[in-house]
C-alpha cells in the first residue's frame, strides 16, 4: 500500500464518502493539495436524472421521496465535499420535516450555494431560509409581538454557544429579525400546521421581508449599538472570536476527529487564524484543516466513527450498487434511518450526537448487515472492479494471507488489527488458496466478495 494512496483515501473518507481505487489513483496523480483544491471548488455536480425521478412519481420531492433525492445526489455527485458540507450544515442547523419536502430540498440548495463562502453570508442565508424561519417560528416574530426562538438559537446553537451572549443580546437579536418571514406567512403557517394540501396541492415557501413589521429602533448587541437588522446581526456575530472558534471547532469535529485533544486545539487555532485572514471564508478554513499536519497525521486516521449516512453512501458509492440515478438510492434512506440518522428528522434542534454513540446505540448490526450485503455480491460493479484488480495484481493465484492483504488494501486501504486479521484468516484459510485466473471462476470471485463483506463487519470499517 502506498502512503500516497492511504493519505488520499483518508482525505476522501472525510471530505467525501470514500473513493474507489481508480479514483484514488487519479487523485494521487494530481497530488494532495491539488485534490483539496478540487474538492473545495465544486464544478458540475453531474446528472442525477431528477427529471426521471419527477416523471416516475408525481410526489417526487415530497415526504420521504425528498430525502431519497438527496441520497441519490450524494451517491452520484461529482462534488463529494459539497454534499458533505450540506450534510454538515443540515446537522449544524437542523430542521424537522414539516409537511413540505420541497422546502428542505430548497434549503439544501441554499446550503450548497453558501457552503464555501463567508460564515456571515451563510448565517444570512440561513436567516432567510423559509424552512428554518417556520421551524423556529420567526414568522411569529413581529415588531409589536416578539418571538425569540430564532434569535436565541442563532446565537446559542448556530454560531457561538452558551456563555458568549447575554439574555439581552438574545432579545436584541430577535428584534433585528422582526419582519423576516415567509411570503404569505399566515396562510403557509396554517397549512403547515394542518399538514394541508388543499385545495390545489402544496405551495412551496419563499422568504419575504416586511419592512412594516420590522423594529428599526436602536439595539445593543454584543457590545455594539445601532438600528440593526438581521444582516447587521450576522455581520456582528461573524466578527466574534466565539463564533470563529465555534464554526472552526464544529468543522474540526465533523471532518477531523470525534474528540479535540491538545494537538487538535492547535489545529483549530490555525483554522481560526485563517478564518479572520480570509474574511470568514469557510473554503479557506477547510483548506487549512485538510492541509494541516494534524489532519494528515496517522493519529487522525480512522479516528471518527462513520455517521450512518456516511457509512451507507460510502458503501453504495464504492460497490456501484445504484449505477443509474433514476433507479433510486438502493434503499439508502431507509437504511440510514434504521441506523439512527433519518435525514430531516434529527432528534432535536441540536442535531445528531456524532461519534461513538452511532455504534453504541444497538445499530451496529444494522450497519454491518447493510454494508456486508452490498459487498457480498460479486456482480456489483464496484465489487467486480476490486476482484478484477486482485486477479490482475500478481499471477492470479493467492494464498489466504495474500488475498486478505489485497482485499484490505483495495477496500480502503484499511489497517486491520491483528485480531481482525486472524479472524479473516480463519475464514479464508478454510478453502485454501484463491485462483482467479479464470475470469468465469464464480466460486473464487465469490470467496473474494465474502472476504470483502467480512472486512466491512470488522470494527475498523466502522471508522473513517
Amino acid at each position, binding site marked *: 500500500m502506498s502512503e500516497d494512496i492511504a493519505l488520499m483515501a483518508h482525505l476522501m473518507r472525510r471530505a467525501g464518502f470514500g473513493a474507489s481505487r481508480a479514483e484514488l489513483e487519479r487523485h494521487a496523480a494530481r497530488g494532495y493539495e491539488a485534490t483539496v483544491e478540487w474538492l473545495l471548488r465544486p464544478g458540475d455536480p453531474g446528472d442525477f436524472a431528477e427529471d426521471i425521478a419527477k416523471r416516475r412519481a408525481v410526489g417526487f420531492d415530497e415526504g420521504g421521496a425528498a430525502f431519497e433525492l438527496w441520497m441519490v445526489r450524494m451517491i452520484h455527485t461529482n462534488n463529494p465535499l459539497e454534499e458533505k458540507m450540506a450534510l454538515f450544515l443540515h446537522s449544524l442547523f437542523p430542521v424537522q420535516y414539516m409537511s413540505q419536502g420541497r422546502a428542505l430540498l430548497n434549503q439544501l440548495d*441554499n446550503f450548497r450555494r453558501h457552503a464555501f463562502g463567508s460564515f456571515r453570508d451563510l448565517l444570512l442565508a440561513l436567516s432567510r431560509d423559509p424552512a428554518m424561519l417556520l421551524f423556529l417560528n420567526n414568522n411569529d416574530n413581529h415588531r409589536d409581538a416578539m418571538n425569540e426562538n430564532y434569535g436565541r438559537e442563532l446565537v446559542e446553537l448556530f454560531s457561538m454557544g452558551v456563555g458568549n451572549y447575554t439574555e439581552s443580546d438574545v432579545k436584541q437579536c430577535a428584534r433585528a429579525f422582526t419582519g423576516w418571514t415567509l*411570503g*404569505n406567512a*399566515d396562510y403557509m403557517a396554517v397549512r403547515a400546521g394542518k399538514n394541508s394540501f388543499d385545495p*390545489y396541492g402544496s405551495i412551496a415557501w419563499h422568504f419575504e421581508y416586511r419592512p412594516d413589521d420590522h423594529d428599526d429602533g436602536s439595539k445593543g448587541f454584543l457590545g455594539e449599538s445601532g438600528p440593526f437588522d438581521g444582516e447587521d446581526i450576522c455581520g456582528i456575530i461573524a466578527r466574534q472570536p466565539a463564533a470563529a472558534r465555534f464554526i472552526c471547532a464544529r468543522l474540526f469535529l465533523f471532518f477531523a476527529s470525534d474528540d479535540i485533544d491538545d494537538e487538535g486545539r492547535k489545529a483549530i487555532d490555525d483554522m481560526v487564524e485563517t478564518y479572520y485572514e480570509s474574511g470568514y471564508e469557510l473554503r479557506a478554513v477547510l483548506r487549512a484543516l485538510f492541509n494541516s499536519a494534524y489532519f494528515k497525521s496517522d493519529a487522525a486516521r480512522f479516528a471518527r466513527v462513520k455517521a450512518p449516512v456516511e457509512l451507507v453512501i460510502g458503501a453504495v458509492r464504492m460497490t456501484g450498487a445504484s449505477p443509474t440515478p433514476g433507479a433510486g438510492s438502493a434503499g439508502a434512506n431507509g437504511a440510514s434511518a434504521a441506523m439512527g440518522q433519518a435525514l430531516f428528522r434529527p432528534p432535536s434542534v441540536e442535531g445528531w450526537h456524532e461519534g461513538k454513540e452511532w455504534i453504541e446505540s444497538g445499530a451496529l448490526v444494522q450497519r454491518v448487515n447493510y454494508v456486508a450485503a452490498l459487498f457480498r455480491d460479486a456482480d456489483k460493479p464496484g465489487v467486480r472492479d476490486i476482484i478484477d484488480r486482485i486477479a490482475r495484481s500478481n499471477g492470479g493465484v493467492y494464498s489466504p494471507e495474500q488475498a486478505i492483504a489485497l482485499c484490505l488494501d483495495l477496500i480502503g486501504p484499511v489497517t486491520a488489527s491483528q485480531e481482525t486479521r486472524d479472524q479473516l484468516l480463519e475464514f479464508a484459510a478454510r478453502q485454501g488458496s484463491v485462483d482467479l485466473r479464470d475470469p468465469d471462476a464464480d466460486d473464487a470471485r465469490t470467496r473474494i466478495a465474502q472476504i470483502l463483506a467480512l472486512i466491512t463487519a470488522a470494527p475498523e470499517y466502522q471508522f473513517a
Partner: protein
Amino acid sequence: MFDLEYVKTIGGGRKIRPYDMAFAADGSIYVLNHATGFGAGRFTVCNLDEDIIAELPDDAGDGAFAQAVSLAFDSEERMFVLDEAKSRVTILDRQARFLDRWGEPGSAPGQLDRPSALRFDRNGDCYVSDQMNHRVQKFTPDGRFLLQWGEYGSGPGQFDMPWGLNLDSRGDVYVADWRNDRVQKFTPDGQFIASFGEPGRGDGQFDRPSCVVVDDGGYIYVGDWGNERVQVLDPDGGFITILRGQATLSLWASRFIDSNPDEKRTREASNLYPSLPPELESPFHASSQTEPYFFGITSLHLDDQGRLYVVESRRQRFQVYQTG
C-alpha cells in the same frame, strides 16, 4: 386570428388527483387519478358543471393498478387503461369493471417497457408510446401487434423516452419525444414528417414535453412539462403563444375553503402571485410557489366544443380554456 380564453378550473378539495382523462360519448369526463385515497377513487366521473357523477373502483382484475398513466375510450366505450409499472393494458367497462387485459413486459414487437400513453385512431386501433423501448407501437383493440417504429436516439424518427402521443384529424401521429425536448410528427404508419422544437425555455423551445393534442385546424398544443407551460404551435410548427396557467377556485375548492375559516381568512390576505427571489425563478420553482400556474402537466385534451383541458398532476385539478 387564433384565440384562447380561460374558462374555469375543475378539481381541488380532494375530489381528483388527475393524471389523464377521457370524454365519454355523453360528454361526461372520466378522470384517471394517479393516486387514490383522501376522497379520490381510481376514476372520478364528473362534468363541466363540476357535478360528481361517480367514483369508480381501483380494479385491474388482479388487484389495484400499480401506476395507471393513460386512459382512452374505444369505439365501444370501453375504458383502456395503461399501467406503466406493469407494462400492460387493462380493459374496463364504463363502471370500471374488469373485462380483459393484454400486453406484457419486454422489448420484442408487441411487448412493452413502461408504456406512457395510449390513444385510438378513427379505425379503432390504438397507438402506444413505449417509453423505455423508445418506440411507438400500434395494436388492434384486442392487443394484436400491427406495427412499430422508432429506436433510441436523437435523429429523425428516433426517441428518448417518449411520453404522450396523439392524433390529428387526418390520423397523423404526434409524439412528445420527452428527453429529446421536441415533438415529432409521423404518418399513421410511422413515416417521419416533421420535428418541432429544441431544448430551452424560449418560444418554441421545450423542456421535456409530456403531451400533445392537435385541434381540427391543425394547431398543436404541447404540454411543456419541464417549463410548466402549454405552448401553441401553428400547423407548420411555428410558435403562436404560451399559456402559463391562471387557475381560480373551482366549485369544490371553494367549498373546501369555505368550510375551513382559518385557511379562508389567511388565504384571502395572501398574494398568490408572489414575486420570488432569483434562486426561485426557474419554471419549476415558480410553479411550486405560484398556485394559479400550471404545475406538472401530464395530459392535454380537446372536447368537441373546442375546449382545451390542461391536466395538472401536482395541483389536483385541470384548467379549461376555450380555443377558437
